[in-house]
């Protein structure tokens, strides 16, 4: 794999409740509550299949979701990927995702 691999805690350790298009998460290992928006819950779901680097994570998400690559700010047409990588960094900072 290129780049670091990431992993997320199993579903049994993270209670998720959807409200108004947002997701409330209770992360049992830390006792912390988080409020996240898409694609954060989807990233966590994809990482629960096993450790993955950024490229593998995006491949898994592409297999499940129709990613919108039409971000006009991105010359390469990779707007969704950039957003996923940014969210991945935030989830790691929040302790919901960690290096495998």
């Amino acid at each position, binding site marked *: 794999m290129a780049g670091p691999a990431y992993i997320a805690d199993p579903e049994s350790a993270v209670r998720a*409740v959807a*409200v108004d298009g947002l997701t409330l998460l209770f992360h049992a290992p830390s*006792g912390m509550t988080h409020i996240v928006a898409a694609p954060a819950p989807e990233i966590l779901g994809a990482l629960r299949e096993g450790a993955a680097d950024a490229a593998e994570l995006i491949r898994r998400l592409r297999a499940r979701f129709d990613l919108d690559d039409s971000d006009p700010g991105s010359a390469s047409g990779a707007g969704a990927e950039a957003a996923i990588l940014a969210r991945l960094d935030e989830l790691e900072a929040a302790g919901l995702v960690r290096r495998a």
Partner: protein
Amino acid sequence: MRHRLALQIGPVAFRIGSAWRAPLDALAKLYAGYPAPADGLCDFTVRLEPERPWRLFLRPSVAIRGDYVLPDAAPLALAHGLLAAEMGMNLQMALGQKRHLLLHAATVEKDGRALIMTGESGAGKSTLAALLGERGWRLMGDEFALLDMASGDLLPFPRAISLKNGAIGVMEAEVGGDRFGPRLDGTPKGAIRHMRPNQEALARMSEAAKPALILFPRFGAAAAVRGVGQAEVFIRLTQASTNYVALGRRGFDALTGLVRGTPALAIDYPDAETAIGLVEDFRRELAA
């Protein structure tokens, strides 16, 4: 402790001990008609002690202590001993309550439907709850809403209502004098006068109610009503809870259950009568 008093308030039993007689006499008068704990066991202990032993007689000053202590719980003049006892009871609840999710909110009930009012200090929730409690609603509590984590029900905690500044005159015009404690001027929060809830609130202090509406009142602006989304309600209620973090997953489940099952509105109101009119409108809509 030289002087002691035990009080049952809703599901919580308090023991208050004091080095002086006067604060407990005032407390016993204010809480006339409240039952003593049935089994003699108490959940929380509040102790009013001299700041230093020699201050018991010389310029006496009350320090609040108990099972849970905040290092900056400031000593009060003995004249404010009643306030110290009340603050001590608040403090023990806020820091020590593990059985219920505690929300800093006022609750009233009518026809089995409970209204939760929460907001920053000065939003008027205490005054509104006190007024509604005299106008056909049952006062469940003006300071803490206790959410039973197993059933999702709200439990009454009808402690004496702490009226501040302008609210004192409003309630003095509404209620007979024998239900008031002494007026305490010059406290850290200005003038304070405690008021005992009415007989119905006391008689039904063990009767739970289903939450039906969460209200975020804000005093001072023209009347306005807006819906509040569940995510915002959740955030506001975590901020209004004194023990959400300590309860862990049980608190999360209880709070998300409350938020998903209960509609929420924010209201602005220019005066108490307008707010009461809005509350009655909401009640009729919920009943329809």
